[in-house]
């Protein structure tokens, strides 16, 4: 378990993300995390996905994977891959400060 400091907040991280500090996450941290993932700017469309991920995680304890995102977030598969290149579910979860989705699909 490593700790990283982002915007003066200490985030305890497991291999993926700050699992222990999910409540510490905020929009500024999301913007920092997105830069680390190579996404320079978070648009409204990015935020729809990130907010959806947070709300599903709060409800179910697991971040949604790609099919749920496609069907329910209001952003389709093509756009998801355009917004978060190289693995939308994994990347969006990371930026949302959540562990990687457990589902296979």
């Amino acid at each position, binding site marked *: 378990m490593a700790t990283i400091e982002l915007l003066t907040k200490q985030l305890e991280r497991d291999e993926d993300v700050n699992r222990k500090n999910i409540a510490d996450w905020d929009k500024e941290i999301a913007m920092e995390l997105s830069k680390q993932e190579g996404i320079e700017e978070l648009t409204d469309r990015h935020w729809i996905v990130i907010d959806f991920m947070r709300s599903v995680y709060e409800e179910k304890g697991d971040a949604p994977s790609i*099919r749920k995102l496609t069907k329910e977030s209001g952003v389709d598969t093509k756009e998801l891959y355009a917004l978060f290149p190289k693995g939308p579910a994994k990347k969006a979860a990371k930026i949302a400060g959540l562990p990687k989705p457990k589902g296979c*699909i």
Partner: protein
Amino acid sequence: MAEPIEKVSIVVSKGSLEGVYPGLIMANGARMEGIEATLFFTFFGLDAIIDKRMDHIKVATVGNPAMHIPTMMGGLPGMSAMATKMMSKEMEKIDIPPVREFIEMIHDAGCEIYGCLATVDMFHLKKEDFCEQLDDIITVGEFYEKSSGAQIIFT
């Protein structure tokens, strides 16, 4: 550490439900991990991308010891349909979509979808017989060209 996998080329050669899904799950999983993926359908695997057949892919209940039912029973009318219905229900619960939706999703995710020319000729099929996600009908030689630098997975 070993080099991460960057590209996979997945061959689907069987037309039963249990023959089709592993390849689709692996292709989708690859894209989810940021790995480039190509799907190549051959022989009975083509059923998964034939417009009229892809919504009727069934579990094989005969000749499959892991079904744990006697072969004679597996051959009774309706057994395959029933097993398919049950399995589809369970798959839906864990977010595995029906074949058509899955193919759309995988294609939208940037995975290219090809049919095998030899099989298409053998079964007297035409491009119009396939779902719109089919990118092309190609030869085995072209398949190898497109698979350059990829890990090839045969299912």
